């Protein structure tokens, strides 16, 4: 039996669903918040409520932002000629952190996986094909993970875009097999970008 009441247990249980937080660290986080109610817990609760209300997926690229189109899509300094396709918003953030890319993004929202029940209709593919069809776009970079699912999805997208007049490129295999973009350091990411090659 736990010494904490049901309210605290519920808080711990919710926290422990977050990536990187096991039951033990969730317990520590809950305790920390309760002890710093005014400096940590209330501001966090407000930030969470605000984020839940205001942040939405960009209808153009799938990025998360309060504005739609998002800050990346509406930044006039960015290059409209290149679209970089990523699996998740986390990958987009990783690439932005590395500062390696100044074009537009497209977030697929996952990768093909028959075993996990994710098919083409579950990904933001139709809108990608639509965007790639536009006259401005010259290059589509497939910055997908070097996992089987990531690479299968890259093959699949190349086939779908094959009859359009865009160059399709992939990141150089500086990306370790089974490696996830989000975990790579910035230097590796920038290098992978510079040495991209035809898919």
């Amino acid at each position, binding site marked *: 039996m736990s010494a904490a009441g049901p309210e605290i247990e519920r808080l711990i249980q919710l926290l422990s669903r977050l990536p990187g937080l*096991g039951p033990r660290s969730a317990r520590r986080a809950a305790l920390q918040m309760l002890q710093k109610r005014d400096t940590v817990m209330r501001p966090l609760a407000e930030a969470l409520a605000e984020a839940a209300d205001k942040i939405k997926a960009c209808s153009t690229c799938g990025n998360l932002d309060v504005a739609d189109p998002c800050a990346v899509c509406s930044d006039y300094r960015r290059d409209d000629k290149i679209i970089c396709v990523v699996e998740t918003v986390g990958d987009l953030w990783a690439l932005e952190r590395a500062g390696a890319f100044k074009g537009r993004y497209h977030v697929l929202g996952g990768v093909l996986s*028959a075993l996990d029940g994710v098919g083409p209709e579950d990904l933001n593919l139709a809108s990608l094909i639509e965007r790639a069809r536009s006259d401005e776009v010259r290059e589509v970079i497939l910055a997908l993970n070097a996992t*089987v699912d990531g690479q299968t999805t890259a093959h699949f997208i190349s086939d*779908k875009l094959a009859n359009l007049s865009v160059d399709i490129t992939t990141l150089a295999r500086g990306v370790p097999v*089974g490696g996830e973009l989000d975990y790579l350091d910035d230097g590796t990411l920038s290098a992978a970008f510079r040495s991209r090659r035809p898919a």
Partner: protein
Amino acid sequence: MIDETANANLKSAPGVTRLKLTGFRNYAALDLTLDPRPVALFGSNGAGKTNLVEAVSFLGPGRGVRAAGADAVRRRTAEGHDPIWAVYAEAMTVEGPVSLATGSDPAEPSRRKTRLDGAATTQTALARLFPMLWLTPREDRLWAGPRSDRMRFFDRLVLAGAPDHGSEASGYEKAQRERQRLLDKQYEGARVDPDWLNALEAEMAARGVALAAARVDALARLQSEIDARPDTAFPKADLELEGLLEARLAAGEAAGVVEDDFILTLQDARRRDGAAGRSLTGPHRTELSARHREKDQLAADCSTGEQKALVLGLALAQASAIARVRGAAPVLILDEACAHLDVARREGLAQGLLDLGAQAWLTGVEAGLFEAFGEGVQRVRVEDGVATRLDDQG
């Protein structure tokens, strides 16, 4: 006596220098300090010798000598299960000393978590840093047993020399399972985007050819190692891989051509594989066969003793082929390998291992089985979950 050249090799060959077990199988706690020499474990049946080498095998890639899951190795006692288990080792590797640790994930005890120098690591990194070969009594039936056991054994030999082999193999398998799921759905009447199948088959072909090429390459090196070896105590084998892709790669065809053809083969086989519920062609169906050269007989037709000697000879030859290519021999685990060898072969084994400079882990019921090693081995007595190093200075 220890050979001087073997001694020079000892510096870089991977090996465990300290092994700590907590709640692992029948070990409540163990802390052994070791040197680079081979380790001979002796003790009665059920003492915990195999458990100890299993712990060592957990330091390399894969699921160890018993292919066990994380729950199976948790220590059971009359009072129940120990809450956690861990294997911690300080080890020498070709890239210098490291710490390796594997154990139950505190957040999810039925999962195994592995760390290299305190940080998360990959199977490929473990295969590169801590290559390993093992033979257990299971391999006694290798030649007469099922095809899949034989290929698993051979793929382990390949992996010990080619660290990427494991990820290519699991990638191939994953792509194959994905494709099969789509074919099954199609067979049941669902519509499947053909581009999705194309993409999976392209992925299968790329990884399948890489996997086959690594096998062909390893086999060629291993065979020439066998051919070049002076006559040892172990019989020489003539090996052959029978597989769609392997045959063409071995004949010198370009990998790109073989890959493109494999894509077409897979495309043609969709209907058939859908009906069969599994894929019927590819490197997962490859067969390894061996002949006893001197007897000119299939390994499967040889006597039990000859079959064992053939496997042992293969493992030793592969270890020295790897030492030649990578500059250091892999860690060898030879569980109960000495028991059924005659004196000449025991001496041949000892000499072979000492020449390699490998840290071999040997087990047997009595210390006398390791006499041929002389001072070249460190002896550890195992009794009822307690392992004691016998001090050879004393």
